[in-house]
Each structure stands twice: as C-alpha cells, then as structure tokens.
C-alpha cells in the first residue's frame, strides 16, 4: 500500500462500483415491503431448457437479507476502497474484481436453480482468489490465494456432485420445487452422500474445522476485501447454503450432530485462537471463524429460537464485523501498524474512528442496548432449546461469547484508550469516505438494538420462514425479555469476559507457547501440496519422458489396446473362412509389394529404402488400376514419383541411416505385429459383410442429370463434395507455405 493520496481520489474506477452497489441496494430495499407481507418474487429466463437449467431467481426473506447485506455493506466498502486504494496502480482492476465479486455473490443468494447457484458459487471462489492475491508480488499473498482457491475449489466440486445427486433424486434443480417436497431427500437412499457433499461444500466455504486454516491466511488481501469477502459476505455463502438446504436436509440426527459438533468445535477453537493473535486483523479473522461456527451450530437445529438466533446473529455479525475491519484499515492507514502492543490512546487523534470502534465492539461484546445483545440472548435461548445436549451447546456458546467479549476489548478498546503508544507514524484521523462505512454500520447496530422491531418484521421473520419453510416460527426480538436463563447467562458472560480480558496478556503468552509446539493444519497443508507435486512429478516422468520414441510407443500401444481390447471384450471376433481366390497376376503384384515393404523395413541404405517405398507405392497404384480406379491410380503414381524425388533431393543433405540399424527391438516388433494382426482381423470381418451402396447409388444416379459429368468420381470431387476438395487444396497450400517458411528461414547449423 502506498500512502501517497492523489490530490483527487474521485476517480471513475473508484466511484462507479459505489454507484452500482448503491443502486442495487435501493432496488432491494424496495422489495422489503413485499417480502415482509409474506410473498416471494420470482423471475425465470430459459437458459439450457434441454438440461432443465434455467436462469431462475427468487427473492424471499433469506435471499433478501443476504442481498441487502451484500449490496449495502458493498456500497460502503466500495466507497471506503475508493479512498483506501486511491492512486494505486491497479485500482481499476481492484474495482472490477470487487464489483464482479458483489454481482457473483448476489447471483448466488438470488438463484433459485441449483446449477445457476453453482456457477455463481464458483465465480465467488475465483474472484476471492484474485482478490486475496491482489498484492501479487508478495509470495505470501500468492500462497494464501492458492490455498483459499484449492480448499474452496474442492468444496465447489463437492457441491456440483451434490447438486447432480439432488437433481437425480428429486427430479428438479429448482430450489422452490425442492422445498415443496419435504421428505424427498431425507427419505432417499442417497441422503447420506448428498449430505456429506453439501456439508463439505459449506464447511470449506465457511471455514469450519478442519477446513478453517485458509481464512486467517486470506487476510493477506487488502483490508476492504477482508471486511467484505472474508467476514461479511463470501464466507457466509456456506452458511447460506446450509440455510437454503435446511428445509430439505435438516431434521435428521446426522444433520443435527454434524453441524452442532463442527460448529461448537470451530467456535470455541476460533475464539481461543483470537485471543492469541497480536495482529488486530488476524484477531478479527479468528472472531469471524467463531461467528461462522456459531451460525453452523445454530443451523443444526430446527427450533424457532435457534433459527431466529442464527438470522439475527448473521445480521449483527455482518454489521459489527465489517465495521471493525474497516476501523482496523483506518488504524493501519493512519499509524502504519496493526500490532496491538504498539497501539494505544489513539482516541485523541482519531476520535470518530474510536467512537465507531467502541459502538461496534459493544455490539460484538453483546452489551445492551445494541443488536449484539439481542443476538446473544437469542443464541442462548436457541442453544438451550437444543433438546438433547443443552448444557454442552450452551457451554460452548458461553465460552466463545466470553472470549468474544475479551477480544472485543483487545481489538476495539485497547488501541484507542489509555496513554499514547508508539506507532511508526503519528496517528491521524481517516478521511470521511473511509469513516462513513464504520460509522454507518456501527450506528445501525445500535439503532436496530434500540428498535429491534424494524428488522424483526421486515427481515428476520421472513428469513426464518424461508429457512424453516413454514410461517409463524420466528421468535420476537426483545431487548428486555424479563429475568430468565439467557439473561443470567449473559451476566455470566460479562463477568467471565471481563476476567479473561484482564488476564489476556498471560493468556496470550501461554497460547503462543502452546501453538508453537503443536503442529498446525496450515503447515500440514504445505506437506500435502508437496506430496501432490511429488506424485505429479513421478507420474509425469513415467509417461512424459521427453523421448519421442516412448510417446509413439505409448500412443500405438493405446491404439492397440483400444482396438484389440474392444474386440476381445465385446467378443466380436468372427473371422470368415479363408478362401484362396487369388489370380496369378494379382498374386505377383502382392509378392512385389511385400518385397518392397520388407526391403524398406530391413535395409540400412537410404536409397534402397526409398526404392522399396517406390515399389510399394507403384504396386498399390497397380492395384487401383486392377480394381477400376484409374483416377486414383494416376494420382497415386504422381504422388509416389514426387515423394521419391523429394526424398532423393533431401537425402543428399541428410545423414546416412545408422549402421547396424537400431538393433533388434523385441517389444517394438511385438507391438507392430499386434497392430498389424488386429488391422487384418478387423478388415477380414469388414469385408465379409455386405457393402451398403446407398450413397454411391445417389451419386451414380445424380451425376449426369444434375451435374452433367460422366466420370462419377470427378463429379463427386468437384461438384457434390467441392467444399471438401477446397479444404484439401487449402491443406496442401498451408503445408507448402509452412515448408517454404521453414526453408527460407534456414540458418547455418547452430553449433553449441
């Protein structure tokens, strides 16, 4: 990042994406009343009707919530980036990628057709790859980008497989039709494979354990990208998929337990790892993992409380997390560091940033009256509603929430309060274009907290309805729900969180000590890649030796196996009886050709070989004459003559054949013999069956009446199949031009 702001950052590349995102946001806002009234919007264009693939898009509660988050946060992030990257050489490229990502993400959440959804899913993977690797001169960025691409790419393949299985099971790729058939997937024998594949896709995309390691590495991307893709939107695509498939796949024990365990492990592990980090951005990255884990955990259930909690927390998290990422970008920009120990007392120089950070952090820590508080209360209510293991689940939520409380303090309070730290640059407040995002997002968190009914009826209820596929399940969003167990748990969270915050320095030292002594999956990733490369190298050296002879041998061997193998496998060998019907004059001709062939194969002399070839060629020309093909014979004679002349001319400048030949090559001879025998066998069978002369009959009948030619072969060539002949002439011409170019450009022999 260069900090040299150009005088005006108001460039087209910076502002066009803002305009696009804002327009989309306003358009989606207009759909809110319709959706809140309980209706859905659907638009279909035919794409590949033969395969049942339509460009069908649907707006229901779930997709509208996502679409508003994507376009709304998108607009703010893009305004932020316009300033953040002003004057960067590749600003235009960045804008293009970020806009493409936004559109792909919107397509993903709006698609009603699973195959369309898959296409957009892959598009988000690719744009994410390009954005993580935006700083392509840094090796770390390239590695992280590739890692994210490969991990999420595997998930993409799994998703495609799952979609095909779903399509064959349910007979439709339309999600809305799928939801109308409740038990079609859960009751199917393919349920388990489908579930495993869908979960693989969702867990890789949303970085659940054990596929979590790519997400912290993805922080190599510029801060706006981290704020947008890797906290608020793209990593939630997996969550979206789980929510979308919830009506069709949930309700079984496998679903419940897999999601609960994966979510709980991820959320606890990630919140512990977040405390360990000293880089503010990495700490936030781990809190994103924690949030994704919590969402997965909640989506494992089908109770109204759990789903309402998931939806509310999804909105809360997107608001405060994007705000905090953007804040850290401003801090990084203004001070030149993101190390938590070097930052302190920034509030004096950066009051607005500090205020936005504080509000977002309070929401993240779950204080009233912020939306985060309501989200947390609902999470507890949802966790307690897990019928089988409420203690375990609520415990995981409690521990991660307390750690979240501590991390909120570390990330968003410590850098701004207390006495001044020693950043590399004197801190200065960010420009308004960068402040707007965090201020608006943090402010919305407070506003929705005080007036939860604004989003409850408009977004949360329709989304819960869409996820559970039945209305009336959504629970109310309340700041004050009376004194109940969730409230007590909240108080416990604050106490435990404050305790953890006070102890975070020794805690961090201990965690660093532990993590340095345990193998990480990230390190294992390098080993895995090295292993794959080694297998590739071994396989390449086996097949692609760089020696032409081997390539040819493998090619011919493949042809032999394909032909002979098919004959044997299909039990198609049906040789006719051999009939000795050879006239002596024909027999002589054959003897001649065989001798010419033998001479060519055996001889060590160039001239003898060329003579042998000539004998074979002329012998074949005689065959053409005998069997009524005078035109072919003439051409054959002409070409054979030319070949001999060309060879003779070239041979003068080419070396002799090596003395002693290349020795007796047993396997080459066997392969040659095998191919020869197979060819003969096939031809014997072909000639034993009658020839279909229907086409020839047409040419014979049409030759004179339609084309006025008495030589049928000629008429075919120049009239009925004139375009072929034209192509043939073109081939010869191209060969001639190529040969001319090769000869013309001949240098003297290059000696090394």
């Amino acid at each position, binding site marked *: 990042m260069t900090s040299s702001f150009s005088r005006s950052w108001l460039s087209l590349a910076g502002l066009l994406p803002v305009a696009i995102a804002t327009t989309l946001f306003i358009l989606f806002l207009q759909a809110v009343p319709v959706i809140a009234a309980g209706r859905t919007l659907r638009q279909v264009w035919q794409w590949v009707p033969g395969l049942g693939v339509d460009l069908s898009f649907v707006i229901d509660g779930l997709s509208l919530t996502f679409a508003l988050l994507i376009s709304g946060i998108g607009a703010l992030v893009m305004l932020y980036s316009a300033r953040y990257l002003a004057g960067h050489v590749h600003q235009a490229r960045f804008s293009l990628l970020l806009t493409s990502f936004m559109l792909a993400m919107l397509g993903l959440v709006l698609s009603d057709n699973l195959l369309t959804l898959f296409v957009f899913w892959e598009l988000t993977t690719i744009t994410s790859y390009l954005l993580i690797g935006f700083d392509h001169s840094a090796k770390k960025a390239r590695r992280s980008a590739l890692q994210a691409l490969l991990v999420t790419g595997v998930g993409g393949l799994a998703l495609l497989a799952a979609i095909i299985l779903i399509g064959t099971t349910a007979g439709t790729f339309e999600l809305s039709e799928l939801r109308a058939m409740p038990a079609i997937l859960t009751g199917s024998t393919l349920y388990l494979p489908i579930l495993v594949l869908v979960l693989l896709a969702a867990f890789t995309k949303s970085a659940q354990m054990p596929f979590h390691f790519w997400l912290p590495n993805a922080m190599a991307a510029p801060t706006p990208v981290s704020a947008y893709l890797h906290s608020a939107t793209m990593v939630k695509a997996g969550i979206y998929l789980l929510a979308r498939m919830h009506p069709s796949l949930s309700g079984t024990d496998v679903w419940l337990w897999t999601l609960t365990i994966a979510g709980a492990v991820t959320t606890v592990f990630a919140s512990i790892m977040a405390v360990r980090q000293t880089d503010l951005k990495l700490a936030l990255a781990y809190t994103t993992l924690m949030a994704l884990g919590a969402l997965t955990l909640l989506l494992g259930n089908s109770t109204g409380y759990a789903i309402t909690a998931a939806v509310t927390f999804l909105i809360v998290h997107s608001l405060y997390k994007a705000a905090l990422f953007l804040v850290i970008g401003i801090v990084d920009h203004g001070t030149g560091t993101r190390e938590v120990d070097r930052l302190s007392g920034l509030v004096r120089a950066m009051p607005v940033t500090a205020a936005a950070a504080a509000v977002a952090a309070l929401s993240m820590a779950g204080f009233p009256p912020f939306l985060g508080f309501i989200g947390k209360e609902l999470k507890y209510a949802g966790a307690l509603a897990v019928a089988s293991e409420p203690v375990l689940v609520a415990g995981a939520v409690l521990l991660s929430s307390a750690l979240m409380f501590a991390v909120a303090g570390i990330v968003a309070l410590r850098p701004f309060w207390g006495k001044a730290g020693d950043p590399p640059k004197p801190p200065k407040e960010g420009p308004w274009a960068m402040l707007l995002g965090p201020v608006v997002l943090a402010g919305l968190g407070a506003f929705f907290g005080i007036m939860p009914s604004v989003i409850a009826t408009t977004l949360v209820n329709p989304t819960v309805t869409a996820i559970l596929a039945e209305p009336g399940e959504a629970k109310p969003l309340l700041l004050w729900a009376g004194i109940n167990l969730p409230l007590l748990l909240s108080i416990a969270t604050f106490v435990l969180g404050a305790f953890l915050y006070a102890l975070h320095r020794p805690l961090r030292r201990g965690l660093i000590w532990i993590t340095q002594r345990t193998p990480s999956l990230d390190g294992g990733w390098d080993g895995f890649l090295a292993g794959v490369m080694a297998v590739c190298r071994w396989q390449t050296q086996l097949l692609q030796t*760089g020696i*032409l002879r081997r390539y*040819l*041998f493998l090619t*011919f061997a493949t042809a032999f196996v394909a032909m002979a193998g098919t004959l044997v496998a299909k039990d198609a060998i049906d040789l006719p009886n051999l009939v000795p*019907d050879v*006239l002596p004059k*024909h027999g002589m001709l*054959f003897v001649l050709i065989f001798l010419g*062939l033998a001479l060519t194969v055996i001889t060590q002399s*160039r001239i003898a070989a060329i003579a042998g*070839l000539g004998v*074979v*060629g002329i012998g*074949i020309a005689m065959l*053409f004459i005998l*069997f*009524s093909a005078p*035109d*072919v014979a003439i*051409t054959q004679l002409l*070409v054979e003559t*030319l*070949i001999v002349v060309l060879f003779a001319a*070239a041979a003068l400048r*080419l*070396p002799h*054949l*090596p003395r002693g*030949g*290349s020795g007796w*090559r047993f396997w*080459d001879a066997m*392969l040659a*013999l095998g*191919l*020869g025998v*197979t*060819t*003969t066998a096939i*031809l014997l069978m072909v*000639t034993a069956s009658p*020839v279909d002369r229907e086409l*020839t009959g047409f040419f*014979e*009948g049409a030759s*004179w009446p339609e084309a006025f030619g*008495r*030589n*049928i*072969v000629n008429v075919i060539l120049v009239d009925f199949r004139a375009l072929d002949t034209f192509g043939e002439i073109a081939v*010869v011409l191209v*060969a001639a031009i*190529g*040969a001319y170019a*090769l*000869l013309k450009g*001949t*240098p003297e022999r290059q*000696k090394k």
Partner: protein
Amino acid sequence: MEQLLSVLIGALVAGSVFLMLAGHLLRFLFGLILLSNAANLTIFLAGGLTPGAPPLISEGAEGPTGTVANALPQALVLTAIVIGFGLFAFALILAFRAYQTLGTLDTDAMRVAEPEEAQ
C-alpha cells in the same frame, strides 16, 4: 482377393509402426508414407473391390450401365492421397530443418522442448 488385401494392409501397418518406433527421423518418414498407403487401401477395400468396371457413364446414358466400381471411396481416397502427400512433404521439411538446427536425426537426442531433468 479381399482377404489377401486385408493381410497386405496389416503387413503395411506392422511395417510402418516398426519403422516409426525406430527412433530415427528418416525411418519415421518411411513409416509415415507406408501408414498413409495402408489407410488409403483400407478405405478403398471397405468400399468393395470390383475388377474392370470403372465408375463412368457412357455417352448418351443417364447413369452407369451394369454394376460399376464404388465411386465414393475412390473420391475419398483421392483426397486422402493428396492430403497424405502434403503431410509427408511438410514432415520431410521439418525433419530436414531439425537436422540443420540440431545436427542429428536421432529422436532420442532431440530434447530441446523437454530437456532431461536433473533427478
């Protein structure tokens, strides 16, 4: 007759494959010529053999009288011969040019595109 020709084509294929695998560009070219001959004969044979009756229409007639040789494979073979020749000529020049640049016709020694990797 067809059976003998089938054997001949098999022999041509065997000879050409053996030559092409020899690891010497001149022999490879010999093999190439034999292989295109074998392919042409295959097409020709598959259309059926008719001695002494070329596919011509006599003066005043609307079509050929009696059974004449199959015209279609002949037309195809004609095209194939010419294209085979184009291929051969180009391959010959390529070999010639390779010899000028690399100083050898031994294909095992031609490793410019895929040099031997240090193990």
